[in-house]
């Protein structure tokens, strides 16, 4: 490895462990390296500026806003009630309810922690009341929330699409089957846990009750159909789908459920602006980091080094998975795309790995990163919701984590899982 590479990565990790904000750690390690090796620093602001002013990235504030509005509009509440009426009387019903509700919410909003917060706040107390262990309930919800970035629409795919220069619409469609598979496997795990601890079932809902719950929730159930159908048919772009989701949520909240008032809008706008700024500052700093990786040839060197380790794509994919699982413990998904994609993209070309397939598996990998301690955004949200410690939830999440890794391996080695649906598109 060259001296520039060592300087860049060493300074980044030292800053990271000192608890410097990730965005600043990425930017400052770039500045230090450029200064030390007398590279042209004046080009830094324009690199950052042009990475921020990409039209596609404008989808991010809207996906945040959509998630916030859907939550306040009362959609998540009704989805949960509907799922409960349908599956509550089966064994492990409450766990299945949690997964179904999270799946639907994930296919309306673009972020993992948002899914976790919207569904978890209602479902975790209900699960604990039923007799599930608190740490396992929180662990299940945190993992299911991670699906939020695998199932479309997803902010993660928007960023991957921008960095890897592939169609975001196709990535969205490719994420559907792996996301649902993950949901299915999590639901089965919930069922197994319910059997093990012999958790009682809820009374069976009558047909009228089921119909009523369905009618109430139908506006929420319709949302993913509109959003994904629109993207699938090519009616609107991913950025536009985010705006459609915002207006759909507003319409339902204001006129159908009438739980939302216009007065709440300014505070939601500010909330989504803050979340967006956090991500975009990382995007700006990380893209200068990625730029340095590329122009200095560090990325190519590392890619060659990785390819020297193995000569077939199955082994390479396995090595990449391990690297990403470890990286996911320390950095967030957005930073990971910028740091690792410059290194991985040449490998994808050399090994003839489909970039759409890789996008899904990398996102799934980073979704697992959301629930691996010490830096797992979903775990922090879950701790905040339930009041249990990071240590407790780290134990509770283990069974779900293993299941998620199993799904990851399936998606990695069966490309058809992600490529089948987008293949039907052309």
């Amino acid at each position, binding site marked *: 490895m060259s001296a520039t590479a060592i300087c860049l990565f060493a300074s980044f990790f030292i800053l*990271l462990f000192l608890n410097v904000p990730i965005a600043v750690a990425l930017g400052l390690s770039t500045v230090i390296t450029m200064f030390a090796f007398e590279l042209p620093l004046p080009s*830094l*602001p324009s690199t950052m500026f042009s990475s921020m*002013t*990409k039209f596609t990235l404008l989808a991010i504030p809207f996906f945040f806003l959509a998630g916030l509005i859907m939550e306040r509009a009362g959609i998540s509440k009704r989805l949960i009630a509907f799922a409960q009426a349908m599956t509550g009387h089966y064994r492990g019903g409450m766990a299945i309810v949690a997964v179904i509700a999270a799946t639907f919410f994930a296919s309306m909003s673009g972020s993992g922690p948002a899914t976790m917060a919207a569904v978890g706040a209602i479902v975790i107390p209900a699960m604990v009341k039923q007799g599930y262990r608190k740490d396992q309930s929180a662990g299940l919800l945190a993992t299911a929330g991670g699906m939020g970035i695998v199932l479309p629409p997803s902010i993660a795919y928007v960023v991957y699409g921008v960095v890897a220069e592939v169609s975001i619409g196709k990535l969205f469609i490719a994420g559907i089957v792996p996301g649902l598979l993950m949901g299915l496997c999590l639901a089965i795990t919930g069922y197994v846990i319910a059997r093990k601890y012999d958790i009682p079932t809820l009374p069976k809902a009558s047909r009228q009750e089921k119909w009523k719950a369905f009618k109430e929730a139908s506006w929420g159930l319709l949302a993913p159909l509109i959003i994904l159908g629109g993207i699938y048919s090519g009616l609107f772009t991913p950025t536009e789908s985010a705006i459609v989701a915002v207006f759909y949520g507003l319409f339902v909240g204001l006129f159908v459920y009438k739980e939302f008032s216009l007065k709440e809008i300014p505070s939601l706008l500010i909330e989504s602006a803050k979340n967006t*700024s956090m991500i975009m500052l990382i995007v700006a700093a990380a893209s200068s980091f990625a730029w340095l990786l590329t122009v200095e040839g560090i990325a190519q060197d590392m890619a060659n080094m990785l390819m020297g380790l193995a000569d077939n794509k199955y082994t390479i994919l396995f090595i990449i998975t391990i690297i990403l699982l470890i990286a996911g413990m320390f950095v967030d998904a957005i930073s990971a795309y910028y740091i690792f994609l410059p290194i991985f993209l040449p490998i994808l070309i050399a090994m003839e790995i489909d970039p759409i397939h890789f996008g899904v598996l990398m996102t799934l990998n980073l979704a697992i990163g959301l629930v691996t301690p010490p*830096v797992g955004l979903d775990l922090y949200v879950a701790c905040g919701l339930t009041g249990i410690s990071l240590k407790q939830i780290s134990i509770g999440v283990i069974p779900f984590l293993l299941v998620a890794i199993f799904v990851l391996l399936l998606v990695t080695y069966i490309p058809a899982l992600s490529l089948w649906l987008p293949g039907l598109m052309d």
Partner: protein
Amino acid sequence: MANVLSRYFLNVSLSMTEELTTNLFAYAIFIGASLLAREKGHLGFSLLTDYLPPKLQIIIAILIGCLTTVFFAVLFWFGLEMVMQQYEYQQKTPALGLDEWIMGLSVPLGSFLCVLRFWEGCILEIKTIRGRMKS
């Protein structure tokens, strides 16, 4: 703040001018980032530093403040240089023909705001650590 945002949201929903919205987006990002800085809302890795004794934590908080300042100062300085250059050559944006330097100004201006707010956040944090030491 809300004004800037609503303006840019309105613009997008009418899908009028890509150029203006993306440039206003840059302003909004820096303003949002500086707001978050005060609340300590930026993602970080606090696991190691949380276990340090409070006195060391204060020193680290100040160190983080200084390091953050260095980063934004570099951004401010070269951002200003970029803006001056854009002004000197009278660069215009390709589609609307607006002055490029007004758009570019978001970088130094935003960096300046971020430095102020990060220090505000830093001082607030030192106060809470001190409070914890007393109790």
